[in-house]
């Protein structure tokens, strides 16, 4: 019953200052929607990266006229090297067929295999292989007489890693900026409400209220605003995702190998909710610290 009275006081303030509460709530919502869109993009980017196999791959061009036994021996030696996940032998005919299929040049003038391609070994490194592994491997392969040349996808991998790092940093900065910015804004809005209620707070202090009693409505208001702001942001994100799925060009989906855009993962959702409430709560704490002197 006592808590109900406290809740009634909070609701009373929502009724008294609807615009200030609405602005605080909207700030949280907008910030979370921006963050949510980023998280959805990040999650889908990760999925695309998964489907396009981000492992480092390479091609080892072999000398002409190696016997099957020599090729097998070479394969085993390479497979035994550190960081090597898989080695596949492809004849020049196979390579040519794959190239033709990729170029769609089946009807074009046939390419003579002997003119362009030797037999190759396709090599795939382990996922956690360090970037230095490619350099070491290339140096090792030059010592094998069966190998004429080797070529790895380290450039693509480096680009991919750079992009991924960029995403991560953008994410971290976006989250930190959002949290601090929102907390600051919310603290200011709450501060305005605090100023409006200063006389009320003074009176409550005069009848023997301690800090906890004076400040608890502000903290609870923050939590309520955080919950409502998070809920409205989630609804907005669901709508946005549906719009993207409905309006997005289907070519993208086929190119990227993505049939539908994933929503936030359960972990992201949890993070999202905690973040929304934390922002509002931090705002409340900001008010508390700002007006601590007044509450003595």
């Amino acid at each position, binding site marked *: 019953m006592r808590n109900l009275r406290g809740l009634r006081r909070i609701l*009373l303030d929502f009724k008294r200052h609807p615009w200030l509460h609405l602005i605080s709530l909207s700030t949280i919502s907008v910030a979370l929607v921006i963050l949510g869109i980023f998280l959805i993009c990040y999650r889908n980017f990760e999925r695309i990266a998964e489907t396009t196999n981000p492992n480092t791959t390479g091609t080892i061009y072999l000398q002409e006229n190696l016997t099957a036994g020599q090729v097998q021996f070479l394969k085993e030696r390479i497979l035994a090297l550190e960081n090597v996940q898989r080695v596949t032998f492809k004849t020049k005919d196979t390579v040519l067929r794959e190239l033709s299929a990729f170029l769609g040049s089946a009807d074009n003038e046939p390419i003579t295999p002997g003119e362009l391609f030797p037999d190759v070994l396709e090599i795939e490194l382990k996922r956690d292989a360090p970037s230095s592994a490619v350099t070491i491997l290339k140096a090792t392969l030059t010592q094998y007489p069966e190998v004429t040349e080797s070529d790895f996808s380290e450039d693509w991998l480096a680009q991919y890693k750079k992009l991924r790092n960029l995403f991560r940093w953008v994410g971290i900065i976006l989250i930190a900026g959002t949290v601090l910015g929102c907390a600051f804004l919310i603290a200011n809005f709450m501060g305005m409400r605090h100023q409006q209620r200063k006389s009320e707070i003074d*009176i409550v202090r005069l009848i023997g209220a301690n800090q906890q009693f004076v400040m608890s409505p502000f903290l609870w208001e923050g939590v309520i605003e955080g919950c409502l702001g998070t809920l409205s942001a989630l609804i907005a994100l669901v709508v946005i995702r549906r719009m993207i799925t409905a309006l997005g060009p289907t070519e993208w989906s086929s190119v990227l190998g993505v049939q539908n855009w994933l929503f936030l993962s359960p972990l992201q959702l949890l993070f999202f909710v905690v973040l929304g409430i934390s922002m509002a709560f931090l705002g409340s704490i900001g008010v508390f610290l700002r007006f601590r002197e007044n509450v003595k």
Partner: protein
Amino acid sequence: MSAKMVRLHRVGKQYSETRYALRDVSFDLERGEFAYVTGINGAGKTTLLKLLFAMERASSGSIVVNSRDISDISRSRIPQYRREVGFVFQDFKLLPDLNVFDNVALPLEVRKMTQGEIEHRVRGVLSLVGLEDRRKDFPLTLSGGEQQRVAIARSIVGKPALLLGDEPTGNLDNRTAREIMALFREIHTMGTTVLIATHDENLMDEFPSRVIELEHGVMIADRQQGWT
């Protein structure tokens, strides 16, 4: 427990090097006593009450209220101390968004009393101040006298050992002021120590009691009203 409710010993309050609000004020109040603090504007009445209510800190001297030395009371102990002392302000200081009942109940909520206790006590004091039938009304719908009654009810609902009033009749017409003062006297007869700051000579004559007179922060008289 000491028989003295209030003991002030050479209490001074200095705001700057040249500005004194109180100088060497000393007096005692017995438990259950009724007294006025009087003097012209700027005499130091309000400052004295503020010191007694721990709204300000004395620059010198000692203040003991209800056996508790509040001269250098820590900030964390002030809320607890204020629950032992009631204060009635000239401007009532009611919360306009809360109705009469909730305004009076607030000190009990602060004390985390149960709803049953709150109901019982609030009904009791509202009956005492004659406002039981206005319990659902909001302060702005009440007259000045009624608002001051609510403020008095709020100040006594926690059964304070000491009740302070800073010009509690200052905003009221003569008739209502007399009614309010009669209410203070009634509360006093129930055993509460009461100290009222006022400059209304007529009221002090009508309700004679001990008078502590201040002038420019100095206590110039401590007499029984009606005596010479």
